[in-house]
């Protein structure tokens, strides 16, 4: 393999990793606050794909992107309010099962509404523009994805580290009841968490599907699971961990495909999960004890 080919594959891998990182953050944020693995997260990402297809059919791309981001964010908040919030006092397993239910609901609802036939993902002209540097060539989206991911992560970390809402999020993640005693509105903080997670999944969805051509009701399953693995790999509840996990899985997966092991690339992700859980269950940067008091 020539140097150019290797670099080319690395670039593709980094780009895929960026999209994974954005989705993985959603898992890790929600887990951090509610100790819930939101199994519906991958399907929110898939729904964002359909939202983009339909909004781009009637609106220019800037408006279509905005609509997709807003509708996905609202959907994330609504799912929490309807399917998770009533179960907050219930045993943790109940809310987890509800999440699995929402996941299947979204898949089957979209099969019913949009059929299981793959729908072509529309081309956003400026994202598809081809860049050439020497022998390397890449579409704009490939370069944009990792950069945008880094920018969004920096903004998110600033929000959590420096603002009053971020402080409240960190407090709620440690101790619900004491946070209430401070006058923090727990429901509002949980909604903000789901809003951020879904918003990032929508951004990830646009970047991911632009490179993938089509969306089906099951397009969210595998990327969703992989990003969950990325979050666990990095240490679930830890944002930089999810980002590192996302990039790692994206890059390794792409390189495996490039080396001709494409049939093995998905298996690799789950092998990684098993090995990580055996060797270091808290993940790369995970805290030692994540159990709530």
């Amino acid at each position: 393999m020539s140097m150019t080919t290797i670099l080319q594959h690395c670039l593709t891998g980094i780009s895929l990793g960026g999209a994974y990182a954005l989705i993985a953050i959603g898992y890790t944020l929600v887990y951090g606050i509610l100790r819930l693995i939101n199994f519906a997260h991958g399907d929110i990402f898939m729904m964002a794909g359909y939202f983009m297809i339909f909004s781009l059919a009637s609106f220019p791309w800037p408006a279509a992107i905005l609509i997709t981001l807003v509708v996905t964010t609202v959907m994330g908040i609504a799912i929490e309010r309807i399917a998770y919030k009533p179960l907050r006092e219930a045993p943790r397993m109940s809310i987890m099962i509800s999440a699995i239910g929402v996941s299947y609901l979204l898949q089957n609802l979209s099969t019913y509404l949009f059929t299981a036939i793959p729908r072509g993902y529309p081309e956003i002209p400026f994202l598809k523009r081809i860049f050439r540097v020497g022998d390397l060539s890449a579409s704009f989206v490939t370069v944009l994805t990792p950069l945008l991911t880094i920018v969004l992560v920096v903004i998110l970390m600033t929000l959590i580290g420096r603002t009053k809402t971020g402080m409240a999020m960190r407090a709620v993640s440690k101790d619900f009841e004491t946070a209430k005693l401070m006058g923090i509105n727990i429901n509002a903080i949980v909604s903000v968490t789901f809003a951020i997670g879904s918003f990032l999944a929508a951004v990830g969805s646009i970047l991911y599907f632009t490179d993938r051509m089509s969306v089906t009701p099951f397009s969210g399953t595998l990327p969703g699971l992989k990003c969950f693995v990325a979050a666990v790999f990095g240490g679930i509840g830890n944002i930089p961990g999810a980002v590192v996990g996302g990039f790692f899985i994206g890059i390794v997966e792409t390189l495996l495909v490039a080396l001709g092991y494409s049939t093995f690339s998905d298996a690799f992700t789950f092998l990684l999960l098993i090995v990580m859980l055996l060797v270091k269950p808290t993940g790369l940067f995970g805290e030692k004890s994540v159990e709530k008091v």
Partner: protein
Amino acid sequence: MSILEIRDLSVHYGGIVALDGISFSVKEGAIVTLIGANGAGKSTTLRTIMGLVHAAGGSVHYRGEKITGLDTRKIVEMGLVLVPEGRRVFPNLTVLENLKLGSYLQHTRHEARNLEHVYDLFPRLLERHWQLAGTLSGGEQQMLAVGRALMANPTMVMMDEPSLGLAPLVVKDIFSIIRRINGEGVTVLLIEQNANVALHTADYGYVLQTGSITLKGTGTELLENEEVKVAYLGKTR
């Protein structure tokens, strides 16, 4: 004038009766204590007043308004705060961030004023303001928990076992601070297993026994009461 009025309050956990229709009141500007053994329902009483636990019956009135069933947030807004048992500082936040959270519902300009007041009461917190709260000693964490409650600029503070697990010297410090903030006009409701120190500090107190109020009296009266002496002050018959 009583600032807090508990009438016939009862609480059930599943089938277990935790509070069996207790009534008591707290005079404005006083230090009042509720003493009782482990499991008597002291913490449950405070948690129910704050809206963290659902009351099965009865009512809580604060400054003449019924607050039973209100959101904790609303109650904090009305100037009633709780320093929870076991301090419960946020270990992953700095001392300053913990204090700021105490002022979560306050205007930013009030926050600065409250912070100055708290640093004046607890200079140690100013020294350690950048440190993670989880790295503080037990006594410092209790100071932080009290300081954090004061950041809400409360009219009344309820404290759940502030002496728990602290060295006697630190307990003395905490109680002198309690008297000091009371001197500044804040009403205090104190829950203690350490009945001795609580009754010496309080204007008057109640004895809570397995879900019911069994005795009432001034601090001195209760200290001299034979039953209290035997049950809570370690006197042998």
